[in-house]
């Protein structure tokens, strides 16, 4: 009853305010001019006449919208969605018609000015009622945040697709570094969140990059970072530390309780053996990857295979799987291995499908990182950052020397294990698929450079080949690919654990054959 009366009071208030003259004004500073536009309050929001927007931006009013600088904004009375070319953006309130003419919320003026002068040059101080044109362009517009039951989502709105990566500064602090990022004035201050997960976010403008320092409240939980487009957004999800410690990581959906517990019990993974596998479905979001002659996209195929593989591993091996993405989102190449490094994954598998220009090529091939002296620096730093050796008491020079040697050792070891994993996976694909086996190869892959663990990249088919594209459309074919990769992982896991002396050779073999028979 009380709730209802509150709503009624609210409605009456807004009805009273609607269509009342409002003494508000917006000051617009541009090209040495100063214009003042009187605003009117409609349903509690400030509106300006569309005709005024046209005058200021040098545009023309259309029957159903506005045309500025070759850009057409289509408006519908009462509908907040504005169609611009093939995209739509949402106004915070719908356009209205008064005295036969369109009135639009003030932010529409900002959009129209952006169409006239370019995005990133139009600054708007909402509370001060001023819109002005700046000299420098920014490309990071604003930061939003929202608390969900088990995680906090930070969203940074960008004007263009930018590359980014997340770095763990300490257990309580992360840095999101956005390459070429320029902060808008709306991002000039630290944002206090204090929701029990994130304490605050501090944006700073660096040389050639923007840095968002994220201070976590609790002892660090897991994070996921990805990009969405239309409009461009960079999203950081920070999970509650408690949930992360008690349960599988957020990438792992809560397993169906009944079937898993009993079947996993007899073949429980050894505590110190292979514990975490990172699966990287290539591309995603704005990066479609290769496209087949009939329009099938690499990003969709490899996500399907990756998710199928994750399910097989979780259901049959009970091992933790970390995915670099589980949806159609953009994740930068550096961030993919950073996810695996932060999760301390034991190995990294990047799944792709191949393409070649006007070629009849078909088949599968597996790759590991080639050992080229010139590639070493990126990988060296990745591995060095992950070497958790206490070097206290050494002088900096000694420390550097030791780190360099440890890195070289680790790199050599990873190289050997990576090429073994590539071979095992190739052999398993060969058993199941009836297409060309193109062998194990090596090349300087960007995505593998940052891996502080054995890492491989798989090209499981040629999407550019119409026959293979057709295969990849069938669930059954993708299931077979996932089964082959699963069988390879079981074999690699067995060898890995036997080498560590965790599984006696005889029993290890029997486990393997028992698995293979299933």
């Amino acid at each position, binding site marked *: 009853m009380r709730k209802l009366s509150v709503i009624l009071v609210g409605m009456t208030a807004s009805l009273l305010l609607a269509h009342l003259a409002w003494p508000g004004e917006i000051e617009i500073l541009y090209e040495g001019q100063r214009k003042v536009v009187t605003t009117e309050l409609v349903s509690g929001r400030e509106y300006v006449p569309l005709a005024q927007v046209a005058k200021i931006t040098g545009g023309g009013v259309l029957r159903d919208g506005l045309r500025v600088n070759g850009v057409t904004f289509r408006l519908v009375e009462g509908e907040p969605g504005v169609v611009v070319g093939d995209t739509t953006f949402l106004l915070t309130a719908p356009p209205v018609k008064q005295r036969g003419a369109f009135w639009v919320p003030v932010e529409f003026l900002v959009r129209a000015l952006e169409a006239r002068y370019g995005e990133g040059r139009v600054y708007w101080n909402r509370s001060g009622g001023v819109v002005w044109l700046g000299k420098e362009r920014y490309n990071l517009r604003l930061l939003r945040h929202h608390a969900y039951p088990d995680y906090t989502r930070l969203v940074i709105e960008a004007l263009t697709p930018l590359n980014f990566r997340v770095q763990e500064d300490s257990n309580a602090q992360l840095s999101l570094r956005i390459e070429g990022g320029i902060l808008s004035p709306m991002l000039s201050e630290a944002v206090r969140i204090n929701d029990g997960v994130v304490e605050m976010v501090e944006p700073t403008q660096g040389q050639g990059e923007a840095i968002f320092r994220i201070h976590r409240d609790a002892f660090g939980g897991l994070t996921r970072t990805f990009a969405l487009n239309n409009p461009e957004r960079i999203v950081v999800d920070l999970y509650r530390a408690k949930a992360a410690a008690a349960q599988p990581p957020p990438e792992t959906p809560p397993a169906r309780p009944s079937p898993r517990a009993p079947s996993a019990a007899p073949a429980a993974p050894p505590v110190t053996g292979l514990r975490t596998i990172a699966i990287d479905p290539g591309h995603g979001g704005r990066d479609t990857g290769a*496209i087949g002659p009939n329009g099938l996209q690499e990003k969709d195929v490899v996500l399907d295979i990756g998710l199928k593989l994750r399910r097989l591993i979780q259901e049959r091996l009970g091992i933790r799987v970390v995915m670099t993405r589980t949806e159609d989102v953009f994740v930068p190449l550096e961030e993919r291995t950073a996810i695996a490094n932060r999760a301390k994954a034991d190995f990294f598998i990047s799944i792709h499908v191949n393409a*070649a220009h006007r070629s009849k090529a078909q088949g599968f091939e597996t790759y590991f990182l080639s050992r080229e002296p010139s590639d070493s620096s990126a990988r060296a730093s990745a591995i060095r950052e992950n070497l958790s050796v206490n070097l206290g008491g050494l002088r900096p020079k*000694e420390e550097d020397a030791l780190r360099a*040697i440890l890195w070289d*050792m680790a790199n050599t070891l990873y190289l050997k294990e990576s090429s073994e994993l590539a071979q095992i996976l190739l052999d398993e694909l060969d058993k199941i698929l009836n297409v060309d086996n193109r062998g194990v190869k*090596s*090349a300087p892959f*960007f995505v593998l450079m940052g891996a502080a663990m054995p890492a491989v990249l798989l090209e499981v088919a040629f999407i550019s080949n119409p026959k293979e594209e057709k295969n990849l459309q069938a669930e059954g074919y993708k299931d077979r690919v996932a089964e082959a990769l699963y069988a390879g992982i079981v074999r690699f896991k067995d060898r890995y654990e036997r080498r560590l002396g965790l599984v006696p050779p005889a029993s290890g073999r029997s486990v393997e054959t028992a698995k293979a028979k299933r």
Partner: protein
Amino acid sequence: MAPLPDRRLLLGLLFLVVVVGTLGFLLGRVLAPRPPEPPGSPVQDGGAVDATTRRIRLFFAVPNADRLQEEERTIPRAASIVEEAKRAVAELIKGPQTDLNPTIPSAVGLLQLYVDGRGTAYVDFTRDLQTKHPGGTGGELLTIYSIVDTLTANFGEIQQVKLLVEGSEILTLAGHIDTRRPFRPRYSFERVR
């Protein structure tokens, strides 16, 4: 400050690490793929038919896309190596005249090419090199090495090639091979084990 024994232990570990590291490195070298011999010998100036033209070898993709194969072409002589190298890349973009496959999308334009004093050619293309690329590791390797091999095989002054797009370094063509560093020639992408 850590006590002394710790330091001695660490230096002992350092020594062990040096020994194992060296062994690992040697093992790595044994396992590392041996670069295949470049087909044929670099084209010499003597290969010219007359003073106004010269024969060059362009590298295109074989039908199953795992290797590059040469195709001969005659280009007009130019005042400098750089100009001739530009013509060679332009011919490469035009595509093969045999039944080999093209390696560069035909919409791509060559913006600039220069060679520094240390034998690195910088080849600057239009954005189409990335946006019109068919993708795939195979496709990327073919594009990269057709350019690298064509330039290094025909011009003795060029030992390695760095790709640029609209004047800037790029991370990858389409998400796979790292293009931040210059490439040395490689003629096939055959299995290494």
